[in-house]
């Protein structure tokens, strides 16, 4: 490009243009992500005491080092909450992803009837908010309104308890499955469609069955989509809140601090223990981050190792 004044002006303009376009995002990112994260970390090292009336009366605060962290991690209720969320995740994540993969592969099988209908029907619950999904299933679990219990009674069986242990975990995982399977299925299905058919034509000619093609060719090729869905599932699962909170009025099994986020909310707004809540948030966020990175690293080597 000739170094005319016009050219220089273009380059000057080009230097600031991307920043101008990105500036709303940068400002909002700073205000609503960076500063809150920093503030949470700061708070987690401070002991807060609210004195006087009102929600935010006079605060007396002091640097308390790692006290909040040791308190949070030695609080049996918080640790139990982490355990509950992990158990719930161990049940729900493999089920959701496994069935999403299964449905996606079935949708991708040639000449299957009613694929459009099945795809739309399975995707539909994605549009239903978690709170409302929990309400719906809650009523389907509640002995006085449940059609399942009704049928069981007609067949002479006793009432079914969906809120006991360990049934509650499966009841919750079922809500996650219902809400999440369609969305994940669509992502996996779409990446299946992106595979050129020529890739498996050869295998078909060699007489490979659809099952073999799915297992040997399709699944390895959609691994990146599986990693993506797995990542979002992990992040979403550990933030479990609205489902147990919604089911709570229906059962006594769910305590007011049943999952970490409920505990955090309770500490922050009922007990005015902001430092403790912040420390518990940081621990949870770090846990999610570590799990996400482990997942990425573990699969990156396997799925992207060849072409990276």
């Amino acid at each position, binding site marked *: 490009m000739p170094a005319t004044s016009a050219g220089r002006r273009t380059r000057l303009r*080009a230097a600031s243009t*991307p*920043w101008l*376009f990105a500036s*709303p*995002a*940068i400002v*909002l*990112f700073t*205000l609503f*992500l960076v*500063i*809150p*994260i920093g*503030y949470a970390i700061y708070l987690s090292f401070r002991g807060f005491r609210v004195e006087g009336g009102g929600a935010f009366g006079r605060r007396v605060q002091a640097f308390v080092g790692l006290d909040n962290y040791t308190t949070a991690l030695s609080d049996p209720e918080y640790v139990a909450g982490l355990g509950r969320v992990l158990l719930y995740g161990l049940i729900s994540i493999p089920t959701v992803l496994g*069935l999403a993969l*299964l*449905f996606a592969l079935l*949708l991708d*099988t040639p*000449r299957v*009837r*009613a*694929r*459009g*209908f*099945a795809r*739309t*029907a*399975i*995707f*539909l*619950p*994605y*549009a*239903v*908010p978690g*709170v409302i999904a929990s*309400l719906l299933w809650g*009523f389907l679990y509640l002995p006085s*309104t449940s*059609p399942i219990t009704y049928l069981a009674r007609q067949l002479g069986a006793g009432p079914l308890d969906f809120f006991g242990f360990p049934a509650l975990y499966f009841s919750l995982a079922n809500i996650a499955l219902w809400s999440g*399977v369609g969305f994940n299925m669509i992502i996996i299905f*779409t*990446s299946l469609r992106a595979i050129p058919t020529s890739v498996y034509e050869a295998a078909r000619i060699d007489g490979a069955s659809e099952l073999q093609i799915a297992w040997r060719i399709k699944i390895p090729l959609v691994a*990146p*989509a599986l990693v*993506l869905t797995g*990542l979002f599932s992990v992040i979403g699962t550990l*933030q479990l*809140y609205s489902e147990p*909170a919604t089911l709570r*009025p229906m059962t006594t099994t769910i305590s007011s601090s049943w999952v970490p*986020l409920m505990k955090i*909310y309770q500490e922050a707004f009922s007990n005015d223990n*902001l430092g403790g809540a912040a420390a518990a948030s940081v621990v*949870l*966020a770090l846990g*999610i*981050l570590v799990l996400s990175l482990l997942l990425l690293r573990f699969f990156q080597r396997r799925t992207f190792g060849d072409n990276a």
Partner: protein
Amino acid sequence: MTVVTTTGTTGDRQFRRRRPRARRRPRLPFTVLLLGALYCLTPVAWVVIAASKTPRELFTTFSFAPGSGLFDNLANLSAYGGGQFWRWGLNSLLYAGLGAILSTLVSAMAGYALAKFRFRGREVLFSVILAGVLVPGIVLAVPQYLLLASVGLAGTHWSVLLPVIINPFGIFLCRVFANAAIPESTLEAARLDGAGELRIFGTIVLPMMAQGLVTVFLLQFVGIWNNFLLPFIMLSDQDKYPITLGLYTFLGKGAGDSDLYPLVIMGSAVSVIPLIALVLVLQRFWRADLLAGGLKG
């Protein structure tokens, strides 16, 4: 979407002549998919049917038998708290609609900048935003509340609207999409014609990214509509509640008073139907390949 099946017998026969065994319509996949569809539709069917029941019918008749209280329930729901339910609906529409539009615009601008300009700090900026995807949004809610409270915004409409405008994943998707959809030559040609950067963005870039933007909009709309913890933490005035939070408090009250159950069920049914319609209509514009390809980008 409608069910599209290629005509059964004639097609099959033609295939059979050429290749006898492999061309049968597979039964098992069809059955499994149908079971999956049934599983997903049953609770929706249940809530629509249950919405028609009077309180007594709800607890006495079989769940899938329609009741006789449809219009009573609807009238009671509308009357509750002086039309509070419809106000919640409007609030949800405001938060999700406006929030998703602004969020999509902000994401499009940032994604375009990151995809189509070479500038110092680009990679750093992109990495930082990408890291934002991994930050669990809900963990931010408490510090966000405290910060907004300190500037007097907690409890206002802004407190639930502003935090959802920034969407790192949306920015990430917009970058992937801008990379794929906008040829460098088009931008060069427009610049040579003397078009300003803002005009290029408004008249060339946005229309070319339209399909991807619909996806980002839909994701964010559903995300905000479904969001529970943010409004739960931010709002105390019931008149500002979105529909999810409203129904949640409704159920909390219903625990002591099962006469409220039919209203909760009616409310769930009413709030589910428009969202399902929206997804069905917009599904055709939805570019899931954008999500699927995301990780490679």
